[in-house]
């Protein structure tokens, strides 16, 4: 067994691996970037080497520095976790070259499965059915277009070096084929350093089924049953469960056998996942993920096995620690991935300080970040995974749903509303899901406002209280003089807003006013006015009398944020001074400005100054978090200014384009 393992990762998986290592009596150390100096994994692992600056390319993807770190801390093995370098054969080679053990398959296997085309060929050789499509990967737009000429739409573009849902695009119309191929090549190049693509028949409304395998590297492979991960958004799994309950047993056995056969054929070592797409009662090979996966806990929960321990032991000892017969399934486990992302802005990562995080006890929670820490734009914005187990699927979902109801994350936007909607969705509960289900459920979700004006008014009142409470003076403090005016007999709000509260696309102009002399306020959120009296009843507990109703709130506010938790409901709004933003530019509405939705890099500018554009037309593309964001025209008009260039790094809210709106458009 290893004496010390360097965990070349961060977040929840680094914490997770460390936990098992300690239980096995193996020492651990980890690495971190400058952005992660006080990250949770650094705190929990207890020893960490700083390996570079915030961008992953300068830290978590630096093979040389990680190997150096492993040697420096005296590790004899490296666990790559998932993501980052986990599937990088050069990394595996470098680790071995430094006379350390790579806790994963051999570099040769990584190479083979890392290339989608080669993996497909391997599956064919192992007699595993595959989806129709191109055989040879290519980075030539014309060649790719030609090679798919006979295939019916829709098509799936896959970066040959992609994985984990990254670098995949669906093409539904022949018009957008070229554009999508170009984007996919760009994405492949920047995200994986490899522009090559393969094209496959896209199977919509299919199920995503995967098999957990474990090999000894000497040809012996067992499976730890299967998982269903059909609930995906943009090819990213959101909810995963084990075992699979949606398929007939015969098909499941067939799939399990496919996976083991493929593993045996390549002499697989350690943990791996063989992914299948299931459509119309048939399973097709998708890819192999030669590493531990995000969703491994659901398998652990139903099998009663510690997958990290199995992985480490199989690699360290060169033999399987358990036999197939030892793997027995009991119950159903469901996992929900809690992400810091903004459902109002098409789920782009929501960065900032996680002000408070309240996750229930009574079920397994694998955390990657704690309250008070920041979600940075550099890495995956996962906050935690919640894993519920039940004797059957229905009860597992009921427990997960209840846990999500009790959860709250403030400071950043999160996908909690989406997770709550999914775990109570009739489609999900009757197991009628496919890989496109989320898109349909999200549509329903969009109709529900994230924050009501009443909640915005309450949050604003709490913000004002927090903002002023520290000042002891009458003019600046929180007291009877707050908002004081000579009385006109009507409790009116001020003539102009003081602050603007926003949550995603929802904005509230907040006007305060004095109600009477005992700490009561008039708060107007947009057009609605409320009378609010706040009474502190304990540490961080405030009674809010709102037009005669009394609510108990836990405030959560700072200079730039207003929010509270009430029961299971968390409300969090950004606060900006009223005299800021677009209000300060001439032309008032100025809706022709296109601002960067988040920090990142502009990778394509598709318009020139003076060019006419229609509403929704593409202006350019920016990349952030390895995700491409298309910038579109918010109004029809003429491009007045192109304020960015391809390759330029831009800050959030930086103006990228200005469109001079068409006259009739502006009037409307």
């Amino acid at each position, binding site marked *: 067994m290893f004496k010390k393992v360097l965990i070349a990762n961060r977040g929840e998986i680094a914490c997770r691996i460390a936990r098992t290592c300690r239980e096995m009596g193996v020492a651990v150390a980890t690495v971190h970037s400058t952005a992660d100096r006080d990250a949770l994994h650094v705190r929990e692992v207890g020893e960490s080497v700083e390996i570079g600056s915030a961008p992953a390319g300068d830290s978590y993807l630096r093979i040389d520095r990680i190997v150096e770190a492993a040697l420096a801390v005296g590790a004899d093995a490296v666990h790559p976790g998932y993501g980052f370098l986990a599937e990088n054969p050069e990394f595996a080679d470098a680790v071995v070259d430094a006379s350390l053990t790579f806790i994963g398959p051999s570099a040769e296997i990584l190479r083979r499965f890392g290339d989608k085309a080669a993996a497909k060929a391997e599956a064919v050789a192992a007699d595993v059915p595959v989806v129709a499509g191109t055989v040879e990967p290519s980075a030539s737009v014309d060649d790719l277009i030609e090679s798919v000429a006979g295939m019916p739409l829709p098509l799936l573009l896959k970066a040959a070096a992609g994985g984990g849902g990254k670098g995949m695009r669906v093409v539904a119309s022949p018009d957008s084929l070229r554009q999508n191929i170009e984007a996919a090549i760009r994405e492949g190049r920047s995200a994986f350093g490899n522009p090559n693509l393969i094209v496959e028949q896209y199977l919509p409304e299919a199920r995503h089924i995967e098999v957990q395998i474990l090999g000894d590297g000497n040809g012996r492979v067992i499976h730890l049953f299967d998982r269903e991960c059909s609930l995906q958004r943009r090819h990213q799994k959101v909810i995963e469960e084990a075992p699979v309950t949606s398929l007939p047993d015969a098909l499941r056995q067939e799939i399990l056998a496919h996976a083991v056969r493929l593993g045996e054929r390549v002499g697989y070592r350690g943990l791996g996942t063989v992914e299948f797409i299931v459509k119309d009662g048939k399973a097709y090979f998708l890819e192999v993920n030669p590493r531990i996966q995000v969703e491994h806990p659901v398998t652990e929960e139903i099998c009663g096995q510690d997958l990290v321990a199995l992985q480490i032991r199989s690699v360290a000892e060169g033999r399987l620690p358990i036999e197939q017969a030892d793997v027995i399934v009991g119950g159903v486990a469901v996992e929900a991935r809690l992400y810091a992302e903004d459902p109002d802005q098409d789920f782009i990562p929501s960065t900032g300080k996680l002000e408070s995080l309240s996750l229930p006890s009574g079920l397994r929670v694998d955390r990657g970040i704690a309250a008070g820490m920041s979600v940075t734009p550099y890495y995956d914005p996962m906050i935690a995974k919640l894993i519920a187990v039940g004797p059957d699927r229905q009860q597992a979902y009921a427990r997960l749903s209840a846990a999500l109801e009790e959860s709250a994350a403030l400071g950043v936007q999160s996908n909690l509303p989406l997770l709550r909607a999914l775990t109570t969705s009739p489609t999900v509960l009757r197991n009628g899901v496919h890989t496109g289900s989320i898109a349909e459920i999200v549509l329903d979700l969009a109709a529900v406002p994230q924050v009501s004006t009443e909640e915005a008014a309450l949050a604003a009142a709490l913000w004002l209280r927090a903002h002023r409470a520290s000042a002891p003076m*009458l*003019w600046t403090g929180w007291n009877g003089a707050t908002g004081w*005016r000579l009385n006109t007999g009507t409790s009116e709000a001020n003539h102009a807003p003081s602050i603007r509260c926003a949550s995603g696309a929802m904005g509230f102009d907040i006007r305060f006013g004095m109600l009477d002399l005992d700490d009561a306020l008039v708060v107007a959120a947009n057009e609605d006015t409320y009378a609010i009296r706040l009474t502190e009843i304990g540490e961080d507990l405030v009674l809010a009398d709102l037009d005669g109703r009394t609510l108990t709130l836990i405030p959560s506010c700072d200079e730039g944020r207003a929010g509270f938790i009430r029961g299971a409901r968390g409300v969090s709004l950004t606060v900006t001074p009223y005299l800021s933003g677009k*209000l300060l530019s001439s032309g008032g509405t100025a809706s022709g400005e296109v601002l960067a939705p988040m920090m990142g890099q502009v990778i394509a500018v598709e318009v020139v100054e003076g060019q006419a554009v229609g509403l929704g037309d593409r202006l350019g593309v920016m990349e952030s978090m390895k995700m491409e964001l298309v910038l579109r025209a918010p109004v029809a008009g003429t491009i007045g200014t192109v304020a960015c260039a391809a390759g330029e790094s831009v800050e959030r809210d930086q103006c990228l384009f200005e469109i001079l709106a068409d006259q009739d458009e502006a009037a409307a």
Partner: protein
Amino acid sequence: MNQNVKPAATELSDADEAQLNAEAFEQLLKELRSRRAASRRGGSDAARQKHLDRGKMLVRERIDALIDPGSPFLELADLAGAELYGDRVPPGAGIVTGVGMIAGQACMIIANDATVKGGTYFGMTCRKHVRAQKFAWTNRLPCVTLVDSGGAFLPDQANIFPDEGLFGSIFHNQVGMSADGIPQIAVVLGACTAGGAYIPALCDEIVIVRGQGFMYLAGPQLVQAATGEKVDPEALGGAEMHSQVSGVTDHMAENDAHALAITRDIVAELPARPAPIRPRTSPEAPALPPGAMHGLINRDPRRPNDTREILRGILDGGDLQEFKAGYGKTLITGFARIGGYQVGVLANNGVLFTESANKATHFIQMCCQRNIPLVFFADVSGFMVGREAEVNGIAKAGAKFITAMSSATVPKYTVIIGGSYGAGYLAMCGRAFRPNAMFMWPNGRAAIMGPDQAATTLALVKRQGFESQGRDWTAEEEEAFKAPIRQEYETFASAFNFARNLWVDGVIEPDETAPVLSLLLEISASVPAGPTRFGVFRT
């Protein structure tokens, strides 16, 4: 002058009296609030809409956007000029003045209301502007002037141009304050022509709005008439020209909101206000519930009020540590706190006698020694008259009182809570003695003498004349003579008349007294008071 007290016509229980008093007071409050609302509204709906259509913010929007979230705004002289210039000019004389916090700093905000006659200056507009400056100077408040004015209202030039305290004093005060280290900031939100251009020009820092703010000594028409030069407003005095060529202005903004945002940034960089020299203790609410004072104010002004009880509705916890409680009982003196700030209270409880005046002198001297602000609650028909009083040297005692009060350099505040007449009005820190601020309750009255006394005095003179001529004067004739005099004095003495003429800084409700004084005391708490040097006391 005698205290003129009539016995109650019928005996009512205290509760019934209070109820009737409160109902009568409600009428006064209703009038006050409706006048305030008219002042708040500004110009006509059409004028306001026109202003908004130009992309400009209304004056009160500008102020509310300029000040900090949750900041109080203590408006001064909101009723000045009411009815002086016809229906088209609402109370306020086309200008809004008051104190608000900007970027954590208390500032005097002086803002033209362009929806009222284009924001032009009437005589009262000048005086109100000057009064706001004096208040700012006394309290060392940076001045932020939001300029959006068509300049002087020419037909009123007699009240604008020639004398001290009018338009020219605005400049004089700007220069004086700037020299005294009190920042002067102007925001040019409209055209400033001729004299109007000097208001911003005499400031330390100027913000101007592109395409909206203009500054020139003569507008395009006048220039053409004078020199034949044809020039458009932008080239003559626009924001770009002044910000990039002439250097007259320092910051260029795109619109009102931008200009206000820049102004906030400017104020944020001003030196911080010094720490308070008078500490604040934990404040307490007054002892009476809101509205309770209304029942204590007699609906018949000729009947006296229980001042001691009224004070319980103003002072923290209703607590007054009385000084010389048993001596000179017609003047209550003592130490108290308002909003947590220590004050020396002088409150009338009847006509002023020699003892009351001596007590006041003693008390004021002590407060000056201890650097405690003075608050005068005036409800006084005057000093006692008659042989006995004169023999007791009331002239000497009154003079001492006035000398002490006039010499005191601690902050002084006056609230007229009832009738305040003659020398009593003056001794209780009348306007002439430059209290830091002076207010009246809506029931308040002030004049040389009361309406009855005035009518009686004049009738007495008339009767003596008739008698010397041997003519007869019937009681009916006398009453017909007295009624218009009484009416004239009533009108003159009213709080609204005093507010209209800026003889006080405003009419406030009894329940507003504590918050207004608290806010004022906090402002003056960080202003150093020089030592008091008293004039010669006649002992």
